[in-house]
């Protein structure tokens, strides 16, 4: 998989240049190339007119490139002044630490960005936005000419946002080039000078912001036509299998989710990364149990406090992270497939090897899994086949509700359409399917209805007929005037 294909990007001094794109469009990869964390395998990079070859993170810092990530990378047990000092001073192993100077410098930098943070505070005690401010102070202090901000406002309050925007405008005044990544279109329109839109690893154009509207930006982001390769929806959905009534879990930031899923229906769950979609799945599966609202499954009001209970109730969850959660790579495919069905398949806790091998062979044939046999370790299979093993594990539990989280992420094109056909067939056979996906084409092509989540809430339902890339993306970004309920 190629993450970036021939992208051209240019940043002027004193410019705020926004970088925009769907999940997986290549923004992070581009940033990693610019900061030296990844090596580009083609093309060239110029800083202040000079070509840079073999950029490494330390070289990038010398060149004045600073990056402020969503998750600040400070030392939690050191004070603010010490953290700033560590970034700025080039100290050898045995050189003196000038505590006084370090502290006064930190005070000066924090003042310049208007942050009310004590230089003696332990970083652990700071909130996430405060830590981001410390990162910005570091960038400022190091005299960075290029400052990259990756979704800096994701965790900020309104007031902190205003402070941040002021800092960014000051940086621009001072001739610093800022690369600004955000999903919030209104911010980009208010702040940026130019915007480059990435789609599928390619640049679809750089435009001055004054020439664009929100609607045009969304069009640039989603661009492509939904291909017709998706298997068609058929038949009428049956009984309501699952209904959620204001479901929420404060620990995972999801609240007030109300929805119905019917037998034989595929409900797509769209939204940006961090919108709370996987968190919702984990609530339903009992990994982070709900603390508000209710779950009704097959007409019965239930509470789910652990995955075992969810499985017993007929809820299956094919997790997003296949290699960490979906399949145990070292174990044989057959063991992986039966792992969630031990109580059903092995009464009295005695393993039944014949039954296990029979079931595995059936799934291998049925789902078209390319494996040398039931004994082939999960890790020896390709991504698509691993995903099928993960699906088989959950079908073996004979579920009534199947939750799929990014079912085709990192899967090649052929396996992808096979998995889509399997999902459609399962729905036809009466399974209720909740499909979380960041792949817009997949959501549009597969779903009978689409639930859009934003900020931990279900913000919009879109029917199959009304659904198009534009409407889903607009709802996910929250630019249609309606806000979180």
């Amino acid at each position, binding site marked *: 998989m190629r993450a970036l294909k021939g992208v051209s990007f240019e940043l002027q001094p004193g410019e705020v240049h926004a970088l925009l794109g769907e999940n997986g469009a290549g923004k992070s990869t581009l940033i990693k190339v610019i900061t030296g964390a990844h090596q580009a395998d083609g093309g060239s990079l110029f800083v202040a007119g000079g070509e840079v070859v073999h950029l490494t993170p330390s070289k990038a810092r010398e060149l004045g490139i600073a990056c402020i990530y969503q998750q600040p990378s400070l030392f939690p047990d050191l004070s603010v002044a010490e953290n700033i000092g560590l970034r700025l001073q080039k100290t050898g192993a045995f050189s003196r630490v000038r505590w006084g100077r370090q502290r006064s410098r930190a005070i000066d930098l924090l003042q310049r960005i208007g942050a009310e943070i004590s230089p003696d505070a332990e970083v652990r005690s700071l909130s996430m936005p405060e830590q981001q401010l410390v990162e910005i102070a570091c960038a400022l202090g190091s005299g960075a000419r290029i400052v990259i901000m990756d979704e800096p406002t994701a965790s900020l309050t309104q007031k902190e946002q205003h402070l941040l925007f002021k800092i960014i405008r000051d940086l621009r005044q001072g001739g610093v080039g800022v690369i600004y990544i955000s999903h919030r279109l209104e911010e980009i329109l208010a702040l940026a000078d130019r915007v480059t839109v990435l789609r599928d690893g390619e640049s679809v154009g750089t435009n001055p912001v004054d020439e664009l509207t929100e609607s045009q930006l969304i069009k640039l982001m989603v661009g492509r036509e939904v291909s017709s390769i998706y298997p068609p929806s058929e038949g009428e959905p049956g009984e309501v299998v699952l209904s959620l009534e204001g479901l929420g879990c404060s620990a995972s930031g999801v609240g007030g989710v109300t929805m119905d899923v019917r037998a034989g229906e595929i409900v797509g769950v769209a939204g940006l990364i961090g919108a709370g979609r996987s968190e919702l799945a984990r609530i339903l599966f009992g990994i982070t149990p709900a603390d508000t609202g209710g779950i009704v499954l097959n007409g019965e009001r239930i509470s789910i406090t652990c995955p075992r209970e969810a499985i017993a109730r007929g809820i299956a969850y094919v997790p997003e992270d296949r290699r960490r959660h979906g399949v145990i790579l070292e174990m044989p495919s057959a063991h992986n497939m039966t792992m969630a069905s031990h109580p059903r398949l092995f009464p009295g806790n005695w393993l039944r090897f014949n039954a296990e091998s029979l079931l595995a062979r059936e799934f291998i044939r049925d789902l078209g899994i390319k494996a040398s046999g039931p004994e082939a370790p999960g890790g020896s299979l390709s991504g698509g086949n691993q995903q099928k093993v993960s699906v088989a*594990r959950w079908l073996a539990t004979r579920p009534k509700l199947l939750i799929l989280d990014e079912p085709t992420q990192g899967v090649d094109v052929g396996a992808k359409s096979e998995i889509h056909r399997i999902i459609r067939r399962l729905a036809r056979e009466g399974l209720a399917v909740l499909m979380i996906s960041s792949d817009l084409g997949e959501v549009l092509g597969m779903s009978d209805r689409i639930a859009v989540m934003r900020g931990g809430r279900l913000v919009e339902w879109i029917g199959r007929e009304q659904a198009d890339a534009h409407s889903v993306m607009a709802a996910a970004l929250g630019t249609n005037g309606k806000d979180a309920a």
Partner: protein
Amino acid sequence: MVLLLVIVLEVILFNSLGRRFLSGGNISNVFRHSVEIGLLALAMTPVILTGGIDLSVGSMMGLSAVLFGMMVNSFGVDPWLAGLAAIGFGALGGGLNALLITRLNLPPLIVTLGTFSLFRGLAEALTKGAESYSAFPKSFLALGNSDVAGLPAQIWVFLMVAAGIWLLVHRTTFGRSFRAIGYSAEGACYAGIPVARNTSLAYIIAGAVAGLAAVILVARLGEARANAGIGYELLAVTAVVLGGVSIFGGSGTVSGTLLGWVSLAMLNNGLTRISDYRIMDQTVASVARELSGLLTGLLLLAALAIGAWTKNLATRRARGQSHPENPPRSSPP
């Protein structure tokens, strides 16, 4: 495979150096004297399969032995009943480990390092550091010193425990879940495996078997002291790891553990034989007993190195042969 070779080599070597190594009497002696370590190794196997470790089993033996001796000597409890109670105390100690590990998510190494000191300390406090208990009925001491059907009595107990642990690890869903937890506790959780419950089971069994080992040790020595089983936990871990169980959890077999234990037991006994019979030059012979630790270490490291080396070789060969689906990446246009 490597271990079988080691065992054959040991037999040949010790048989040529020391007299009567292969005699029936000596072989049963080898096993009689190492049953306790064998039991601990068996008990440790499920724990290590889950990716954990239990360093407290040796100390648990000391504590169980003292409690057992007290019950029989000071309170006149029937030794068989007291033996069952000692196993129960062991299970309780294992339960304490399990509680700290699964409820508080503390690392097993640290938790059992703590209970390693705690249990031994309790045993010493109960005996005020010096007391021992040695008034046991003959019928009980027979467990440690007599033969039943041509084999040492305690070997029959050992074989029953071995069969039980083998069934648990290789034939039940618990064994399957131990492996899953060892490979990826998070992955096991996402598959609905009751990770905390099953991990706890492994530690509780380890404690209970340590209690049993204490009773057998007391029966063999005729004495219950607080220092019973000192250093046994590391010998048990050595046997398990020698037997090919991955210290990171997941892979390993009970038969591997048994082979590891046999090769370790023979090594120690064989070296003792050499020094006992003074076949070799005297200075070398007296060194032989001290060599035991050194050779145990060498055996472990060599077995691990050979294991890792053959595995590397196998994967390299596999990689060299097949991967037509990954052609070299073409350069960008």
